[in-house]
């Protein structure tokens, strides 16, 4: 049972501050500086959590955030990591993944049925379609960790960018030395450390390493060139040394010129039956609990060892008053053979010291099974002798009574970010560890991650890496002497990791991955079923896919796979490391949730008029204008009627607007559009269709010629940025004598449309609007309401109309002037929905809605806009091929037959003899025509005028539609060419 020790000068807790909190409804107390885990451990709570799959009781394993044994629900926040989350007063803590509470968890029965839940069982058991809904409901209830509170207060965090010359990741002796080395060369250094304080982990007290480390800490703190950030996880590495740093309350996007990875190594568990019992933990966890939080792991501790570090930890714990009863050393007594440390003298000295302290040392023995007491906590450890090959030889077992088992059998490098940077590793058999093999430019490795274990060697290695990183960033020169010195020390490295710290057991429950409750047999079974590479075994068994991402399991899994296949570990590859290395709360990634939004300069006017807003790409536009007493449908219909019968006004300022100047302006447009523009008369406009190289329609617009060397043209709202970028690229490639200017945001555009538009506008403008002076498709420059304007006669909605383009700063004034002048004429502003109805009544297509990523002009009935006689335009060559091949689909107009009020929707399918033969692209009910009309892309065989098609609407209801010519409304275009009489204002029906 764990308990609190007396004070120590190096402790991290503040005994003058006492926090009260509840766990599973019961009240406990802890000190300031305690984490949730350390406070509960000090209180002697026997177990704190239930495992993911079998709901086995769990307690501390790593106490370093390298496992997910101890995730808690805290004050409504799920999956709070108890090992590293500081306690605060009044916290309400409960276990996750339980049904009926931690102690009475109903799902604990699953542990007894584990034989029916082998690896991959879900692939085999739940494939039946008939039963799948039931299985899905069961799994949704049973699985998952924590509960998301849907009414939780929304939090935003402030992301920021950071900049430095050298980023050092890891605050142990080698990281501290790297930071000092880089700073000495003149670099700006940022040092990040995931622990709350700089101290390095596992540095011995009795051998003076801790004191030496603290001196390095002092030097770092005193250096003005080094910025330290503790409690910060380097979560991911992206190109160009862009590292995501997850701090408690924000994400820093650090841009460094060079990076030193000194993140150290992660202690690995020994694998034996019941190695997951409460009370069984890593030696480094016990060390941190004792030294930092003054919590003893137990009153009668057994250490499972395979290296010198284990002995140092035992001596440190003994000096702190913790009784270590025995050391079970996996290595043979002779100090040679598998798992031998290589430094016989140091081994013997350590053994003697521990024996002198009253510890029983059992060399050549391995853990076989941990025994649980009635409360589920470990009460004994059964050990067996190892054979000549270092393998546990089940036979005579010795039972060692204990209430805590510590494991110090080896390490795996925290090299994930180095791998993400493009670095590679190789397996070093002498170290039984993967070490860096290659590092990309600007990336350096140091310390135990680099395979350097001796303390002084780590300091030299860190200094070397720091100076090399600084040199790469342009500061100082890397020291060759340092590199040589480091190499010499590295050659004297000893092996701290056992080659195979795994005991087989016929009753299994020897856990490899604690997150996923994976046992040795699970991984062997996966390999046996053919999933016998590291990547396949990972995906089939889920090893390494839990919240710890394999930190404590990948290495042992690789060893098991190697044994199964009869190959060396060095022949197998680590699984690919991808961001994020460590779980990052989504709120840190979301940040302030900036949501880019564009508004036209008439936005405030729309708001005053009661606009109901809708998003159009990253713009906000009026969907319609709400009028008291009118429903949405009625308002839209009224807006449509106003345009057809009198005059309407719409803000089309979201359109892309581009000017092109220069002697080659017309020739350039001839190349980028399908039509001919170099011969367009000054003062006229023409519709333009833009294709990509494969002949697919990508955009359309109206091109106006304002002068011999000046054109002004529009693009679709969604295409403006990409089209401009593409035109710049083409101009740079072709080197023509012209210049492009993007005026999308700097100009506003208003469309005045309806039979009364001319009469209304003439009163405001100096431009003669008579049919002869300003014909359909003309463009004029003048003034409207005293504002400099460009006017274009275009006909998107099919009525006499003028598109008025002005400088952005004049738009709001012009809107007000037009609405005031339009009142006697029955003017009504209209929004996007009304415009959709109007344009569809005219059969006008919308690129990206009525066309898709494969639609060419022939399929879209837009061949009339293509001038194949030009010497060249983008997509021309492809069109020649497409014309020969013939269309795969054809855009047609449809009238939907009366279906009792049911309407198809966009993207509903056209079905012919049970097969998909097309889809609806646009559909509205037109009250003007008293008909549901639409456009559809259909198989060419169906595209006969008068032919009938079937549409599968919602709930599988089949509707009939007839193919008809377009436009549906004013098919000869007389209205937009103003060839119909204009009604008097008082005759308008609005």
């Amino acid at each position, binding site marked *: 049972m764990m308990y609190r020790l007396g004070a120590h000068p190096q402790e991290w807790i503040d005994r003058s501050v006492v926090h009260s909190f509840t766990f599973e409804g019961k009240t406990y107390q802890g000190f300031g500086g305690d984490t949730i885990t350390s406070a509960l451990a000090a209180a002697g709570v026997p177990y704190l959590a239930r495992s993911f799959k079998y709901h086995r009781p769990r307690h501390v394993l790593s106490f370093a955030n390298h496992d997910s044994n101890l995730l808690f629900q805290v004050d409504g926040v799920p999956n709070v990591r108890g090992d590293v989350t500081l306690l605060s007063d009044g916290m309400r803590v409960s276990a996750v993944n339980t049904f009926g509470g931690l102690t009475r968890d109903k799902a604990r029965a699953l542990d007894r049925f584990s034989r029916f839940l082998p690896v991959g069982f879900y692939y085999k058991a739940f494939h039946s379609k008939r039963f799948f809904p039931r299985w899905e409901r069961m799994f949704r209830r049973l699985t998952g960790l924590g509960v998301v509170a849907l009414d939780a207060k929304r939090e935003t965090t402030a992301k920021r960018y950071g900049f430095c010359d050298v980023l050092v990741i890891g605050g142990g002796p080698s990281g501290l030395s790297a930071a000092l080395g880089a700073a000495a060369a003149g670099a700006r250094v940022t040092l990040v450390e995931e622990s709350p304080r700089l101290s390095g982990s596992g540095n011995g007290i009795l051998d003076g390493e801790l004191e030496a480390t603290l001196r390095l800490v002092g030097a770092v703190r005193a250096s003005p060139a080094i910025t330290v950030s503790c409690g910060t996880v380097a979560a991911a590495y992206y190109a160009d040394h862009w590292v995501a740093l997850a701090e408690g309350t924000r994400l820093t996007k650090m841009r460094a010129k060079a990076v030193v990875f000194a993140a150290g190594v992660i202690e690995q568990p020994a694998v034996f039956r019941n190695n997951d019992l409460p009370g069984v933990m890593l030696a480094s966890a016990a060390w941190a609990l004792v030294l930092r939080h003054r919590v003893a792991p137990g009153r009668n501790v057994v250490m499972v060892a395979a290296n010198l570090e284990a002995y140092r930890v035992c001596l440190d714990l003994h000096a702190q008053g913790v009784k270590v009863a025995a050391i079970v050393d996996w290595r043979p007594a002779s100090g040679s053979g598998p798992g031998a440390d290589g430094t016989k003298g140091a081994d013997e000295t350590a053994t003697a010291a521990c024996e002198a302290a009253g510890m029983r040392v059992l060399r050549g023995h391995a853990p076989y099974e941990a025994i649980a007491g009635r409360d589920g906590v470990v009460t004994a450890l059964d050990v067996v002798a190892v054979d000549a090959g270092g393998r546990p030889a089940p036979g005579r077992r010795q039972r060692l009574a204990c209430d805590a088992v510590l494991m110090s059998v080896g390490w795996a490098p925290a090299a994930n970010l180095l791998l993400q940077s493009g670095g590679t590793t190789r397996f070093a058999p002498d170290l039984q560890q993967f070490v860096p093999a290659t590092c990309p430019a600007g990336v350096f490795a140091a310390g135990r991650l680099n395979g350097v274990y001796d303390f002084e060697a780590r300091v030299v290695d860190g200094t070397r890496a720091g100076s090399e990183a600084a040199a790469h960033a342009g500061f100082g020169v890397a020291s060759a002497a340092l590199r040589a010195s480091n190499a010499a020390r590295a050659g004297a490295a000893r092996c701290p990791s056992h080659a195979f710290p795994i005991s087989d057991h016929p009753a299994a429950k020897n856990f490899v991955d604690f997150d996923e409750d994976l046992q040795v047999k699970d991984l062997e079974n996966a390999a046996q079923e053919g999933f016998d590479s590291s990547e396949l075994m990972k995906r089939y068994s889920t090893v390494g896919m839990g919240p710890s991402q394999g930190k404590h399991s990948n290495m042992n899994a690789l060893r098991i796979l190697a044994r199964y296949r009869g190959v060396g570990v060095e022949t197998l590859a680590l699984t690919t490391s991808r961001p994020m290395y460590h779980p990052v709360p989504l709120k840190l990634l979301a940040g302030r949730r900036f949501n880019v939004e564009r508004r036209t300069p008439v936005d405030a006017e729309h708001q005053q008029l009661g606009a109901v807003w809708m998003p159009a790409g990253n713009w906000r536009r009026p969907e319609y204008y709400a009028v008291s007493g009118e429903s949405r449908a009625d308002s839209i219909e009224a807006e449509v009627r106003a345009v057809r019968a009198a005059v309407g006004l719409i803000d089309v300022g979201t359109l892309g607007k581009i000017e092109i100047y220069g002697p080659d302006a017309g020739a350039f447009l001839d190349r980028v559009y399908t039509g001919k523009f170099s011969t367009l008369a000054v003062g006229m406009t023409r519709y333009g269709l833009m294709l990509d190289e494969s002949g697919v329609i990508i955009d359309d617009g109206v091109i106006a010629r304002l002068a011999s060397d000046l054109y002004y043209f529009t693009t679709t709202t969604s295409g403006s940025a990409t089209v401009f970028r593409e035109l710049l690229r083409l101009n740079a490639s072709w080197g023509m004598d012209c*210049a492009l200017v993007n005026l999308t945001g700097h100009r506003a555009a208003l469309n005045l449309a309806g039979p009364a538009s001319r009469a209304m506008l003439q009163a405001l403008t100096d431009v003669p609007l008579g049919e002869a002076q300003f014909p359909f498709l003309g463009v004029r420059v003048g003034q409207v309401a005293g504002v400099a304007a460009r006017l274009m006669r275009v006909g998107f909605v099919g009525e006499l109309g003028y598109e008025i383009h002005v400088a*952005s700063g004049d738009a709001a004034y012009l809107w007000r002037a037009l609405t005031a002048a339009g009142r006697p004429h029955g003017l009504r502003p209209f929004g996007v929905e009304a415009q959709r109805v109007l344009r569809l009544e005219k059969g006008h297509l919308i690129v990206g809605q009525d066309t898709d990523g494969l639609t060419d002009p022939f399929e879209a009935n837009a061949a009339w806009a293509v001038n194949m006689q030009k010497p060249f335009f983008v997509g021309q060559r492809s069109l020649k091929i497409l014309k020969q091949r013939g269309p795969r689909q054809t855009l047609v107009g449809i009238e939907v037959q009366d279906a009792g009020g049911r309407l198809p929707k966009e993207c509903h399918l056209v079905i012919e003899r049970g097969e998909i033969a097309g889809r609806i692209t646009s559909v509205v009910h037109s009250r003007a025509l008293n008909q549901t009309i639409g456009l559809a892309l259909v198989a060419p065989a169906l595209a006969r005028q008068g032919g009938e098609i079937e549409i599968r609407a919602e709930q599988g209801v089949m509707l009939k539609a007839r193919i008809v010519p377009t436009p549906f409304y004013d098919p000869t275009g007389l209205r937009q060419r103003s060839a119909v009489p204009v009604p008097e204002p008082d005759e308008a029906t609005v």
Partner: protein
Amino acid sequence: MTALSLTARTSLERFGLKGPGAADWLLAQGIGVPPAPNTWLGPATPDDETLLVARLGSSEFFLEDSAGGSVLAAIEPKPGAHPPGVYPVLREDVSWLLTGAGVVDVLAQVCNVDFAALDLTHRPVIMTLMIGVAVLVVPQAGGEAFGRGASANFRIWCDPTFGPYLGESLGEVVRECGGNYRGVSA
């Protein structure tokens, strides 16, 4: 130390020019031309009433007059009457002045450029993205110390359709950093 603030600039006369003849045309108008792309000439401080000329590329320029200035109104090419090789560019930008203590903290939250590392003696013009919006930034002397000992105020321009979003977002950050935001009234 000056308090952190973000202030929308009142409407100033501005326009752009591009084309092979743009630089020579400006010189012919008696206006100094920055020698290199991405540099500027003009007011040393926000209160200085000199014309600002920013060179955005080898043949593209952005000009802004001072408050009350009349230089640009006198020389701006009339629509349709531009000289050969000199193409006027309509500029209706929204602009702000960001200044004061902690300005670099604000910029670090919204922009990927290391402003603290800039050498302001070169009068750099920065064209970059700020919280998703393309902006033009001109650091000017006269502000508080930051970074490696240089000091700067920051003049920021953007497309007017992004103005409300950028102003509100920057203003939110400035307020959280303890500063004031004075926006454009409707």
